[in-house]
């Protein structure tokens, strides 16, 4: 920690003009920085100020979605949040369903939760693997990315794509559970539970990791609330808030799960909370596969519009095809907002419709964007060598923040 005390609270007012600080530009071509640039002011090797320069992956998703038919925004929001595709898809569809006034049937709700939880595990493993790279441990990267594959295989079996699933549509989902899914999922879950014990020895409780992460990048509870950070990072700071509990969507109101919280809010806690959430997701997947009700996977309003060829396909292959309604969807005028807990935190959608074939205003906020204060506030006072630790521990995904 630095000898000089820097006032974290009004960081933006720090005058760096006249002082003799080293200015270091990290990124965007840098193995650690991903697709963003960090402008760091250094006093010796103590970080005085960090100015994140984002926007290298700003792909104008809001602008594009306001100029396309409603259904075409589903792939767009997925591509923005690549490790959390299902959640982005779900959040958008929930908002559109609120505008349309459609309620999906219970089986579809459970399927949505199922895919979301599988996706959450892959997302956390992705985060843990990248954190490993940041700390210089390629073993963990190899482990986490390898263990992501059985779950991606499950997603592929159910939805037909590795990552960009486009699985959830207004009114329901596109495919039903295939044969043999439950047995395969059980095998994968048992495998993951066994591996999590190995992770503990080689990574989570490794003294090197503990030495590099404990008391690094601490964000206290009141600061976390004030800065409005989201997701596992918020819960690592001790705030009990999870959108699945407080804004229940899909099947989460019928499911029994815990929301793990930590106390200290440092990098080590942010690592632990991801491991704990993987355990909770494993529990949830078991529960969903046990409780999943029989029935339709698409709302009646959509089902009735299918033509005979599509209905035959639905009965034989359990595959929902799109009626012409999907292209010409015009939700009634009004505004709606929805929140979904993705792997990295809370997605917020606000959509305004004027009853036209395009959304009038399409606004969404992604978790990584709301975690930006970590760079400006938490890094201050640490040594430069701690910056990768903090960056890796908040699981920041730049394309998601830039939208």
């Amino acid at each position: 920690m630095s000898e000089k005390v820097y006032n974290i609270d009004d960081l933006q007012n720090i005058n760096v003009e006249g002082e003799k600080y080293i200015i270091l530009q990290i990124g965007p071509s840098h193995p650690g920085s991903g697709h963003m640039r960090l402008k760091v002011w250094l006093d010796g090797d103590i970080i005085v100020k960090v100015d994140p320069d984002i926007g290298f992956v700003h792909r104008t998703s809001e602008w594009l979605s306001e100029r396309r038919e409603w259904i075409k925004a589903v792939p767009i929001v997925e591509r923005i949040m690549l490790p959390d595709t299902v959640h982005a898809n779900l959040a958008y569809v929930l908002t559109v369903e609120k505008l349309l006034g459609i309620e999906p049937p219970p089986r579809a709700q459970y399927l949505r939760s199922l895919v979301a939880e599988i996706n959450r595990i892959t997302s956390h493993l992705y985060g843990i693997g990248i954190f490993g790279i940041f700390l210089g441990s390629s073993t963990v990267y190899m482990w986490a990315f390898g263990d992501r594959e059985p779950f991606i295989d499950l997603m592929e079996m159910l939805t037909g794509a590795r990552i960009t699933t486009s699985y959830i549509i207004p009114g329901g989902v596109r495919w039903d559970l295939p044969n043999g899914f439950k047995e395969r999922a059980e095998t994968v879950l048992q495998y993951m539970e066994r591996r999590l014990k190995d992770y503990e020895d080689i990574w989570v409780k490794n003294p090197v990791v503990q030495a590099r992460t404990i008391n690094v990048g601490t964000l206290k509870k009141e600061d976390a609330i004030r800065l409005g950070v989201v997701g596992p990072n918020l819960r690592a700071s001790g705030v009990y808030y999870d959108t699945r509990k407080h804004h229940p969507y899909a099947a989460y109101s019928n499911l029994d799960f815990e929301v793990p919280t930590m106390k200290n809010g440092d990098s080590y806690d942010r690592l632990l909370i991801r491991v704990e959430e993987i355990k909770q997701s494993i529990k949830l997947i078991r529960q969903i596969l046990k409780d999943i009700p029989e029935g339709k996977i698409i709302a009646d309003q959509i089902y009735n519009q299918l033509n005979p060829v599509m209905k035959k396909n639905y009965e034989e292959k359990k595959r929902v095809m799109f009626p012409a309604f999907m292209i010409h969807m015009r939700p009634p005028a009004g505004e709606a907002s929805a929140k979904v807990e993705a792997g990295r935190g809370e997605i917020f959608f606000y959509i305004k419709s004027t009853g036209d074939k395009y959304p009038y205003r399409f606004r969404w906020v992604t978790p990584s964007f709301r975690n930006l204060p970590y760079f400006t506030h938490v890094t201050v006072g640490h040594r430069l060598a701690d910056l990768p630790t903090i960056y890796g521990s908040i699981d920041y995904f730049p394309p998601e923040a830039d939208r």
Partner: protein
Amino acid sequence: MSEVRKPRDPLTGHVKALAKGFKYLVEPNRMTLDYPAETMKLPPNYRGFFTVDDKKCIGCSMCEMVCPPEAITMVPRIIGEGGKTIPAPEGEKEVKGPKRTKRPVVNWGKCIFCYFCVDVCPVDAFIPTQVHDLAFEKDSEYRPSYEDYLKPPEEPYKNSKKVISKADLKRGVSYEPAP
């Protein structure tokens, strides 16, 4: 939950980590797919390259309308006198005079494999395949003409061993020969 956070003392911590590493050195869980020598046969609903059934298609343009990246363009297809764009398929020989209709062509340089077009087709005319590993050397190659598009996509490594992936309790993913 805070009982998880108990710093381990360095000696046992290092020993345990090294022991675990040694365990995986002796008994590795290998999940590598030896790619060009063995290729994966993907599940039947996998969204790979696709082609269209010329006889089933009615030229309604629904796929063009739903395509999010606007990768599908409808090209004219003329049968009969004058038009030579497409040779008339069998069973349509009795057509007199030019018969104009439209057919979809996909630009692989824009396609995102969401299969909205396949699902919106009212006559289910698209033929999905599980071909997933194509790459092109020139930018003209991935914009096929309608005649080229009608041919089903060719797998690059036809003679390789076909495997399917399987969940494995010990290794996570294992492979077995495709049926």
